Every structure is written in structure tokens, then in C-alpha cells.
């Protein structure tokens, strides 16, 4: 298929002739998705840790719910946030529809369940290993949870990156709440969607290759950190 060859050529040309417009789009993509990953981590990690170490009625239901929400359709999230942030909606007075902030909110909602559910699993596995020792040392649940987060930090980093990857790759939600405004809310995925609409498939795929490469580089970085840490801290 000649289209693929053209796509790789286009991707290469994009990287080589890095024009400022594209740089801005890549930068915004990174900023929005890293912010979302950061905020989602601040919410999802303590949530996951709490569910991992606490026993309360409805816990199993909550775990099933969180696991299910990992597959939340981005378009639905986008629509929900849109209706909330729209001027006619309950939070309309803030006036942040069609801004990067709105996109951060949408992506955060999208990946909190991912980070919470996966970190719950990781921390619960560690809890099984550590619980007797920590109890014996007199750790209460809260400090035990903090200890577990710190001790599983390298696994958790992978989870946060999984969340970031999902945020950076999604298009449905940011298209709706961001509006794909040139120079304001246009990110890599919405640009890809736009170029596809214009029938410029090689350019769209080329952008896709750049996006995938970015995610790969970030994950490779995390893998290296993990590897080094594993060797240093065991």
C-alpha cells in the first residue's frame, strides 16, 4: 500500500522540518495530557490505596465499578463535561468550555478510574506481602498505605504512564470540550481527525506516527527508570 510509505515520509518530514505550528500542537498535547495524568494520579492513587488496605461494605462493588469505568467511552465523558461546562449548564459561569482546562478535566475524568483501579491492584498485592510485617511494626492503615505507595512507586509509575497514554491518545472527549480551535485547543489527536476529514491521509497518519513515537519514548524512559531502580533498590 503506497499510503503507508507516504505516511512514513510525511512523519519524517514533520519531524525534520519541525515547524512552530506543529511544535505548539505537540507541546499542548503534552501539557494537557501530563496535567491530566498528574491530577488523576493525585486523585486516583490515594483512592486506589485506600480501597486496597481498607475493608468496608460495598468494597467489592466499588472495585467492579472502577474496573468497568476503565473502559469509559471518551465521547460520553466529553459530552458530559460539555453539558456541565456549557454556558447553559450548571458550571457554565466559570466559562472554561473550549479551553485547555476543559480538556484537562475531561481527560482526568477519563483516566482516574484507570489509575485508581490499577494502583488498587498493585497496592493490594503488596499489602498481602507486607501486611503482617507492617502490623507487627505497629503501622496503622494510613501510614501503611503511604508506605505501600512509596514501596511500589516504580510499578505505579508504569500505571501513571498508562493513564497518560490513554489521555494523549483519546480524541472524542477533547474534540467535544476543546472544540479543536486552531492555536488554542488543537492537539495531536484532533489534528489527526481534522486532517483525516480533509482527506490528507498521509499527513494524518504521519502525525499519528509522531504521536505514537512520543508515547513510546516516554514509556521507554519509564522502563529505563524502572530497570535502574530495580537494580538499585531490589
Amino acid at each position: 500500500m503506497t499510503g503507508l510509505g507516504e505516511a512514513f515520509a510525511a512523519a519524517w518530514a514533520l519531524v525534520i522540518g519541525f515547524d512552530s505550528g506543529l511544535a505548539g500542537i505537540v507541546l499542548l498535547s503534552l501539557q494537557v495530557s501530563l496535567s491530566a495524568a498528574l491530577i488523576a494520579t493525585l486523585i486516583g492513587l490515594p483512592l486506589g490505596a485506600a480501597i486496597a488496605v481498607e475493608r468496608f461494605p460495598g468494597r467489592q462493588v466499588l472495585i467492579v465499578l472502577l474496573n468497568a469505568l476503565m473502559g469509559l467511552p471518551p465521547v460520553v465523558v466529553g459530552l458530559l463535561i460539555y453539558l456541565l461546562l456549557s454556558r447553559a449548564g450548571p458550571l457554565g459561569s466559570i466559562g472554561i468550555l473550549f479551553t485547555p482546562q476543559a480538556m484537562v478535566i475531561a481527560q482526568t475524568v477519563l483516566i482516574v478510574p484507570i489509575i485508581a483501579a490499577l494502583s488498587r491492584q498493585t497496592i493490594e498485592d503488596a499489602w498481602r506481602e507486607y501486611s503482617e510485617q507492617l502490623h507487627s511494626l505497629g503501622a496503622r492503615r494510613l501510614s501503611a498505605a503511604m508506605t505501600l505507595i512509596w514501596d511500589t512507586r516504580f510499578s505505579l509509575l508504569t500505571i501513571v504512564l498508562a493513564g497518560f497514554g490513554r489521555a494523549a491518545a483519546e480524541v472524542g472527549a477533547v474534540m467535544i470540550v476543546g472544540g479543536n480551535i486552531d492555536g488554542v485547543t488543537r492537539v495531536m489527536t484532533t489534528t489527526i481527525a481534522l486532517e483525516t476529514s480533509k482527506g490528507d491521509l498521509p499527513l494524518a497518519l504521519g502525525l499519528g506516527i509522531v504521536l505514537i513515537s512520543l508515547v513510546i519514548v516516554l514509556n521507554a524512559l519509564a522502563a529505563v527508570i524502572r530497570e535502574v531502580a530495580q537494580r538499585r533498590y531490589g
Partner: protein
Amino acid sequence: MLPLQLDQLTFGAGGTAIINGISAKIEAGPRTIILGPNGAGKSVLMRLCHGLLTPTGGRIVWHGARNGDVRRHQAMVFQRPVMLRRSALANVVYGLQLAGKSRRESELRAMDVLEVVGLEQQAHRPARVLSGGEQQRLALARAWALGPDVLFLDEPTANLDPASTHDIENIVNTIHASGTKIIMTTHNLGQARRLGDEILFISNGRLMEQTPIDRFFKEPASAEASAFIKGELPWH
């Protein structure tokens, strides 16, 4: 806080009794060895005493308990120690800080105990990269640093080579000499003889006898104990 009194202590899970009506009194002073074949319930008994498990029947009474907080005055070393992903020193400091000590006080105390167990050179190395023997010595240091009245040890040398076992046994004796009560499980008769002052022999979740060490090996009171000694001795 001793003596420790067990009163018809029972623990069951899923309909089977793992510990079945054990009554005993463990006094301050002598090193107590809980001995018995695999699956006798030694580890469970120890976890009940330490408070990691809740008995399904009977009582555990610490007669000399100060301020009611019995957990603070006891510590435990497990067969497979769980080391936190941080330095050896930080592992010891962690326990001390949980016990409410200041950072500075904790570090000083931690360095002291690391020196006693011979790990002062390894203080700043990550705990998880230490050898099995070193990790177990670190676990002893972490437990002992808390200054417990009673130290529980659950098969602390089961996974170790003879040299490391020897190190651990020396440290246990040091801790005993400092005035801490030692309660330890083992299925190794040689170790029981080397470290024990009295034996609690457990079989099938029941206490068969509580006997001073010399008498235990010469004339065990129970048929189960004499069978165990006969079966085990040729290899030790």
C-alpha cells in the same frame, strides 16, 4: 509485661481447628522454643500471641502489661523478612519512627543496632539487595531496635545456610543477654538444643508438653515428642 498466659486458646479457619485449646504460662527469663513438626500450628500460635491473628476461642493475657499497650512492648521476626524498598538504615528507622521516636533519635539508635548485628557497613545499601542472611540480621536489628520486652522469632533460620544460621543464633543470644524475652519457633532439634531453655512441644494444634530443655531430650513426657526426637535426631 510477662508472664504471658494462654487460656484454652483456640483458632480455627474454615471449620478446622488449627490451634486447639492450648493453655500455658510463659515466664520472663528463659528462652522459650516452640517445637513441633511442620503443620503443627507453631506459626499460628506465635501470630496469635503477637496479635496478628485474633483467637476464635480462649484468651491471651499479658500479666505484667504496662499502660495496656502490649503491642509496643513486643516485636517479631518472620521466616521471610519483608524489607522495604529503601536502605538498611531506613528500614530500622521506619520501625522506630512508627513507634514515635524522632528522626535523629531513630537514626542514632538504628546505627547502634546495625553495628551489633554487623551491618554498619551496609547501612546505606538498599535492603532488598542484601543477601538472605544479611536481610534476616537486618530484620533482627529492626525488631530489636524497638527495645521490646518480648521478641518473637518464627523459624528465623529456615531459609539460611549454616554460616548465616550461626550469625543469627549469636545475635539471638545477644538480645537474650540484654534482657529481652525470646520466644522462637523451630522444627530443628539442633537449634532447639543450642538456643532453648524450655520447650513447648506442639502437635496437631495441641500443646503436648512444656518441659525444660535437658529433661525434654532425656525423657520427653509425651509419646509424640519422643517419636519426633527419634525421627529427627539422626540427621542432626
